[in-house]
């Protein structure tokens, strides 16, 4: 699994299900600075839709990329402000 994005921090939410990947992502983003990129590693297949929905509906974040691997879903979220 590789990405062109240089992530500042990695959040491991493997084994956790809804709503934890979203709630933890939000908490992790709050700790970062503008311009930082958070890598979220999840096993919840629902996180593909949920992270996208959360990023779309939330100010100050931008979903850069989502990578679907073997039961691993990796999301790259940038803090924009």
């Amino acid at each position: 699994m590789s990405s062109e994005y240089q992530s500042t921090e990695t959040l491991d939410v493997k084994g956790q299900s809804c709503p934890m990947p979203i709630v933890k992502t939000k908490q992790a983003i709050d700790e970062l600075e503008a311009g930082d990129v958070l890598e979220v590693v999840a096993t919840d297949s629902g996180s593909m839709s949920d992270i996208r929905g959360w990023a779309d509906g939330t100010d100050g974040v931008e979903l850069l990329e989502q990578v679907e691997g073997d039961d691993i879903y990796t999301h790259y979220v940038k803090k924009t402000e």
Partner: protein
Amino acid sequence: MSTDNQTTPIEDGEADAESNPEIDTAELQALRERVEEVEESLAEADLGDDQKKMTIVATQGSFDMAYPPLILASTAAAFGWEVVVFHTFWGLDILHEEKSKDLKLSAVGNPNMPVPNAVAALPGMDTMATKMMQKKIDDNGTATIEELIDLSLESGVDLQACQMTIELMDYDEDDFHDGVTTGVGAATALQHMAESDIQLLV
């Protein structure tokens, strides 16, 4: 602009106002200030509209019914929404420090249970059904009720306990998790619902 241009006064607003006896400068200044005020309050109103609000009324206190309001509330808080969950009747048990650790699933009356109602009604069946569900929740990595309450409070969700039902159930205000709002009633709930974009009854 030449000074002898008095016959065609529609050139400059300020000069025009000064030379026009119909509009005096002070009045014009007052109008300008008023326009600025209105623009500012409009900008504030626009900002206010961006802030989504959700109010959930939680009336059920069984193990399975405790989840939907808490999951939606904590997720909405992650969106930055302002969230109020008004807990009333059995929903109070979700916020009750002792009772929230021991919420039960009902084995009776749920046709999806793998046992017939006649068997489900036997003593101990609710406890068994609850244990089975708890194990499934652990295996699935689903958060516990305790975790969701803590997360919700941490992220600014206003978990409210209805005062009338606290008294009805003989509970004490100190029986609830720290951070739970007490001393609120139907009028408070309605006020939040009226201001909310989303209102749910669970």
